[in-house]
């Protein structure tokens, strides 16, 4: 399974997290769904779908929290028969990132994923460039940015 990152500071914390939490698939993206790193995906189309769905779920739960006049939810877990999906946000110097983690229930558990996710969040905060302003992707650049990111994420 390969791990790839568009921004190099993400790579090491992500590799450590995957190893310790026993994650099967991981996406790190901006809240707009722009993918910054991935582990375990073999097809670009899967990354695009997962990122879009993950960002949409995060936006929905943020809105529910807003309507309940609560701070955003810390994390979201969905457990299936064989796999679990964990979705949570991390505040970094690069802005808010969203992590989507898929884990096998016979290899890992929600407790392990939550435990090592806290470490991942701390590692990302420490490694992120402190003075960078998150780059806005304009509609005009969207396709080129997406294509560049996917090329990096799949080593093309």
């Amino acid at each position, binding site marked *: 399974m390969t791990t790839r990152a568009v921004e190099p500071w993400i790579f090491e914390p992500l590799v450590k997290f995957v190893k310790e939490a026993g994650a099967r698939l991981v996406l790190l993206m901006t809240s707009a769904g722009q993918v910054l790193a991935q582990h375990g995906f073999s097809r670009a189309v899967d990354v695009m779908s997962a990122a879009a769905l993950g960002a949409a779920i995060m936006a929905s739960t943020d809105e529910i929290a807003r309507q309940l006049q609560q701070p955003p939810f810390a994390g979201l877990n969905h*457990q299936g028969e064989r796999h679990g999906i964990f979705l949570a946000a991390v505040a970094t110097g690069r802005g808010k990132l969203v992590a989507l983690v898929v884990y096998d*229930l016979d290899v*890992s*558990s*929600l*407790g*392990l994923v*939550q*435990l090592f996710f806290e470490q991942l969040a701390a590692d990302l905060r420490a490694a992120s460039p402190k003075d960078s302003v998150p780059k806005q992707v304009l509609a005009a650049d969207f396709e080129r940015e997406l294509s560049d990111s996917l090329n990096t994420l799949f080593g093309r």
Partner: protein
Amino acid sequence: MSTAPAGYGRVLDLVTRVRGVRGAMLVAGDDGLVVAEQLMEGIKGPAVAALAASLANRLHRAMDAAGVGADQFWHLQAEQGALLVVPAPSGMLVVAVAEPDVNVGLVRLELLRAAEAVG
């Protein structure tokens, strides 16, 4: 520190009243999440729960592969303490964190009682 519903609190009392026990927890075996805990300051409950459940899962598979039946009790001795675990029939784990020189037999007995009470 204690976070335990009343019924589970009494179950954990069985374990924590043994001299040398620093804390006891009920852990969901599948998830590795804390269900109830009575721990002394400084013990990282969620970390112990997640790692103990992961270990229990692997030990269970090892026992299964070896054809020796289900695990009933395990005891990990470290330099500065010990971890003792009994799986309850429901899949919940009863976990004790103890001093290195704790009376292991007594803790085991109370863990087994607690596991029976949890069901």
